[in-house]
């Protein structure tokens, strides 16, 4: 077990090294940050001096080693445009994205479970057919189109929901890091459209997944046995079948939430939502190299860590779920 964990951790570190190297190797290609820092009137000489001062002219490996050394001390560089440690900039933008993803996840969970379970139990009912048809349509509509339509309909035409941004936020811990929109009505209103449009990508997927898992579970021997034991229908569906459906779905949910983080780039762009995805695109456009690399490393480490933890956890759970579970 211990050796397994060590191996996974080493793998994780390797992956992150590769990602940081990739991120770093593109740095000179993404544009010159100095141009964004100075007005258009500044002479080339002065810009060159600034580049020199920022260490942008050093050889590649000098810069990379410096970066690694600093990274070990938790310093991923300084964002040129925000004039703050890149890590801090990322952490300040993270809450917005996290709240968006959580909101979307909540919506997904709230709707996909009842709908998925229902359409597994009554596959021929009208509601199930409607749900399935709707979910096929749902996966076929690009999220940015959904978002645009939402803005047009709810914000511009009906004036019932705001069109952009986070609205009123409250500093959750009083240190400026976590500006939350969850505690004001205004903030929640702002959250609604982005969350729903973000949820619209994953919801159909989950309805289908839950439905097919549930249907599969309903066909298993142990459910049949539960019937044979004379348990009530409700108990069989909601206790026996549902719990078994839950396990694989929750696992997939974990992975998909990660993928949802990527989709926030699209939603955040349309809604001008000041989260990490928005920051990421902005950093690309404004050539904030340090921020970009830091972001890549952070994202990579989050994924690698989550993956590694899930793997390690799975190796504990595995026999429980796998041997006796689905074929």
């Amino acid at each position, binding site marked *: 077990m211990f050796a397994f964990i060590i191996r996974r951790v080493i793998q994780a570190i390797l992956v992150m090294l590769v990602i940081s190297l990739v991120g770093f190797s593109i740095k000179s290609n993404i544009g010159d940050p100095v141009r964004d820092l100075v007005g258009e009137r500044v002479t080339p000489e002065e810009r060159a001096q600034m580049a020199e001062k920022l260490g942008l002219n050093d050889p590649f490996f000098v810069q990379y080693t410096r970066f690694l050394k600093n990274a070990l001390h938790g310093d991923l560089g300084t964002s040129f445009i925000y004039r703050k440690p890149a890590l801090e900039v990322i952490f300040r933008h993270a809450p917005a994205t996290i709240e968006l993803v959580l909101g979307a996840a909540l919506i997904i969970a709230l709707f996909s479970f009842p709908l998925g379970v229902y359409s597994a139990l009554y596959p021929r009912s009208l509601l199930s057919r409607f749900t399935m048809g709707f979910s096929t349509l749902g996966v076929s509509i690009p999220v940015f189109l959904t978002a645009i339509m939402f803005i047009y309909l709810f914000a511009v035409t009906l004036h019932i929901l705001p069109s952009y941004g986070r609205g009123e936020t409250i500093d959750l811990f009083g240190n400026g890091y976590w500006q939350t929109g969850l505690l004001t009505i205004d903030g929640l209103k702002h959250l609604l459209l982005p969350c729903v449009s973000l949820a619209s990508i994953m919801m159909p997927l989950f309805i289908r997944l839950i439905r097919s898992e549930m249907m599969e579970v309903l066909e298993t*021997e*142990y459910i049949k046995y539960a019937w*044979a*034991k004379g*348990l009530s*229908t409700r108990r069989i569906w909601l206790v026996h079948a549902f719990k078994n459906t839950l396990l694989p779905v929750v696992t997939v949910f974990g992975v998909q939430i990660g993928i949802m983080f990527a989709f926030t780039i699209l939603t955040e762009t349309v809604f001008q939502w000041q989260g990490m995805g928005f920051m990421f695109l902005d950093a690309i456009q404004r050539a904030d190299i340090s921020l970009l690399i830091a972001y890549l490393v952070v994202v990579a480490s989050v994924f690698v860590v989550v993956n590694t933890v899930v793997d390690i956890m799975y190796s504990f759970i595995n026999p*429980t779920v796998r041997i006796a579970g689905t074929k």
Partner: protein
Amino acid sequence: MSHLLQINDLEVKFALRTGDITAIDGIRFTLDRGEKLGLVGESGAGKSVTGFSIINLLSKPGYISKGKIFFQGNEISSYPNEKMRKIRGNAISMIFQDPMMTLNPVFTVGFQMIETIQAHREISKANARKIALEKLKKVHIPSPEKRLEQYPHELSGGMRQRIIIAISLLTDPAIIIADEPTTALDVTIQAEIMDLLQELCASDNMALILITHDLGVVSQVTEKIAVMYAGKIIEYGSTDQVVKHPVHPYTEGLIKSIPGTLIKHGEDLVQIPGMMPTLTNIPPGCAFNPRCYLKESICTQKTPELRDMGQGVQAACHVKQRGNRQNNNEAG
């Protein structure tokens, strides 16, 4: 007087998109309290379907299209689901084939036992637990207290089947339907489980329907036997008589296929040529006729009915009489 269980002309069909398929075609048998019946046949013969139709648990497209099932004099085949639920797992319990897949992997053994009792009795959790423990002891499970807290995957196959048997005992049923209870188990454990079942039936005066493809097992356990072929019972009678003096060429073939001793495993029907027809293309007349060495023209025209062949044995064959059995038996 009425039998404990009486099945009259049961017919089960599967509704498919292409039309209905008959899976069980007019079978009947009876079972009395404490009696043990073996339901024998190849897979696909309709044994399991028969078992499930008794507790009205046919899988989705299947339904009882004709016939009646009486349990303790009541016609249970027409019971609505909720009424039937009170009989399932209560008066009639069932033991499934594969203990590895029968228990729900995400609940503890205790949970699954207690919920069964509580589904049928108004009883506290603590009392239900006591009953569960008692039944676990009855099926000779070591350290039963510990088992209640364990998950199925922590237990061996034999252990699980014992637990399933214990579960079927929880409500002191009148009948246990055991569907191939030992097929998925190791040879050594098979015998133990069969012994246990016999022992329990004897001590609690329970009736047993033992569904199996293994004539050897049946011959040792049950008093009555019903041999099924392509959805029909083709021979029915006391185990002793049927095994010693089979009438139907199929039964005969089954017995012959077990060379020497009857308790030899793993050898199936090597001597009967051909395969059992699938339900969609059952030949006209006697379903067995393409494989039968006694085939006559009538066999392809008329479906034989179960007839009394003497000694309490019934068989469905146009050709064979009980008289000429000895020769055939010895020919093996």
